[in-house]
């Protein structure tokens, strides 16, 4: 697949021009829920190319950021008691209630950073010791966890499941009035799994224009063009801009595996609150692989962001990183306060790295 056309300067400029012509005077708030989208938008300076009236707002699209403190605390506790916990590098530095996996390891806890679940399984198998994989992520990573559960894992290997689901989270947030949008830019990778049809509820029930967007600059701008058109026509629907990778029904096999292995349950989104039916847990049939049930650790968790941190507002798009007094001074990637500055998909981290949005 030749992606160069989607980075082509003249095509992007033309699309931006179309957008400028179409844009109404009134302010339109479009939210996306994907750290990779924020990365593209910030890195290519897309906000500087679109009309001021169109506001592209980063939402809770950072899986590391929304993993609950109690899940992090559980991971730390399990590692501190001597069982190796395997984690992605992104999660390693995120503070829980009292500590982070990184700090815990400095105190002797058994934490191992891996690039993938298959690495964790391989290392665990070779070590012949019990291990726990900290399974975070949205619908993109859940099928990988499910697949491993179904294929079989080494003796003593289990999962601390902390997966979250995007559409239920968004509907809850809309119901609660915690977010208000004129359009939704849907995440490409999640959509390849759940399918374009998963977002019909937003257009049909909530009357919100939807565009599923790929990750190149042209993808994003074309999605914005369509959202504006939908808004003007007063006919919201789901526009699949990422049709090269996303099918209406999604990835059936992945969805089947997930459904076999997981049940949907209420879940805590850090800094936001409990959102109904927005998380995954292992079904009873797989209890022997469920680290939460095997290790039964009690944590005195505080369900919030660290003191002074405005990550919860950043996640809901009500505060931009540059509006947080800690941004860039007390909170930097080298010495982060909250998860939004730790994770590669965190809005604050991305803004710190790529200069954020400036009005030119």
């Amino acid at each position: 697949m030749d992606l160069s056309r989607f980075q082509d300067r003249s095509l992007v400029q033309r699309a931006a021009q179309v957008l400028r012509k179409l844009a109404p005077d009134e302010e339109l708030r479009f939210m996306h829920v994907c750290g990779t989208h924020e990365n593209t938008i910030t890195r290519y300076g897309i906000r500087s190319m679109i009309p001021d009236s169109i506001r592209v707002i980063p939402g809770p699209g950072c899986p590391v950021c929304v993993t609950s403190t109690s899940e992090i605390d559980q991971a730390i506790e399990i590692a501190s008691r001597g069982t190796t916990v395997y984690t992605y590098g992104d999660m390693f530095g995120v503070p829980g209630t009292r500590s982070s996996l990184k700090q815990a390891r400095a105190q002797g806890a058994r934490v191992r950073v891996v690039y993938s679940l298959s690495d964790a399984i391989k290392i665990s198998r070779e070590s012949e010791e019990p291990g726990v994989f900290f399974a975070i992520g949205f619908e993109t990573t859940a099928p990988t966890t499910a697949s491993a559960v179904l294929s079989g894992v080494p003796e003593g290997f289990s999962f601390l499941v902390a997966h979250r689901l995007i559409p239920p989270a968004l509907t809850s947030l809309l119901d609660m009035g915690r977010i208000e949008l004129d359009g939704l830019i849907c995440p490409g990778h999640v959509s390849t799994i759940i399918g374009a049809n998963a977002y019909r509820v937003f257009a049909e029930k909530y009357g919100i224009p939807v565009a599923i967007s790929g990750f190149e600059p042209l993808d994003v701008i074309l999605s914005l063009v369509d959202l504006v058109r939908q808004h003007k026509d007063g006919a919201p629907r789901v526009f699949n801009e990422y049709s090269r990778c996303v099918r209406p029904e999604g990835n059936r096999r992945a969805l089947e595996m997930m459904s076999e292995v997981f049940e949907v349950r209420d879940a805590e989104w850090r800094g936001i609150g409990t959102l109904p039916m927005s998380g995954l847990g292992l079904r009873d049939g797989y209890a022997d692989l469920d680290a939460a049930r095997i290790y039964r650790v009690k944590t005195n968790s505080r369900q919030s962001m660290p003191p002074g941190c405005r990550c919860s507002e950043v996640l809901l798009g009500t505060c931009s990183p540059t509006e947080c007094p800690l941004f860039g001074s007390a909170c930097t990637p080298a010495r982060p306060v909250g998860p939004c500055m730790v994770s590669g998909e965190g809005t604050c981290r991305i803004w710190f790295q790529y200069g954020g949005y400036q009005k030119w």
Partner: protein
Amino acid sequence: MVDHKPDKAERPARGLSVDEGSGGSAMMKLISEVILSNVTRYGCGGVTLRELDDSGSIVVGDLEIVLTTDAHTIKPIFFPGGDIGSLAASGTLNDVSVMGVKPRAISFSMVVEEGFSKDDLSRIVRSFNGVLEEVGVDLITGDTKVLEKGDIDGVVVTTSAIGVTQKGRIVRDSGIRPGDIIIISGSVGDHGISILSVREGFDFQLETKSDVGPIWEVVEAALEAAGTEGVRAMKDPTRGGLSNALNELAEKSGVGMEVREEEIPIRQDIASAAEMLGVDPLSVTNEGKAIIAVDPELSDDVLAALRRTRRGRDAAIIGRAVADHVGEVVMETKVGGKRLLERPIGDPAPRIC
């Protein structure tokens, strides 16, 4: 995103952290707190310590003597494109060169771990000498220490170099004026990305290579074309990469900068490796390049002169200085958007130079 390596030992919370030696803002803070605040004799007349330029200088009669020093801790010691020897020579000689002064003599001090191979040491010194030959610089003094096994990792090389010029004929970091053209002498990211690739064990069809090498020839060409008046500032973009160096030049000169992403030369193999590593080629060290800020009337002449040199053949105009957004570097992205090109916190990996 850069992952933490599983087997790296944790450092205690209170002492120095690796960040503070990585060339970025943490290190600048350290220098300010520990060095600048404790040193009462930091030079006068020439380029003083407080200017934190690539080299310092003292005035002796009608002459100005430029002096610089560098420690080299790179791991691996031998890498595609060079080794700690060629790196030690090039890095230090380049710091003199970017002051607009031809380097004349160098010192070589090594602290070696017991058990280190003599053959490897000879190879390193021959490599060092190769750079001296290329520039016409003499090694006139040195020092050798051998520490017990485990008390140092392999070898650390420290070099100091001097150059001599007419008093005042120095090119500082702070001379850029709005309207000046910014030129880079060649592709960026080569050294940092190739070292990181080697460490990750990447195996590419086209092996990425460090650009380590002396740039005096390139600087000389620029000076011949524009003189020390026409060349407003120079810097070799080492730790922190092009991003850091541009920001530093902008700050020290009190100007803003506008650069175009499209114009910044990056080799295809480096770009691919960088993509796989998740590291930005603009924020990693270069060991054979110079940023040259030039009088706009002379920029075409300078560019042509650079392109006639071996190490400057891919030189390119990447932007210009402006009066707005002082101290900030604005980049026009590949697709025509705009964003700030921020200083990275430091290099993404330790012991890269």
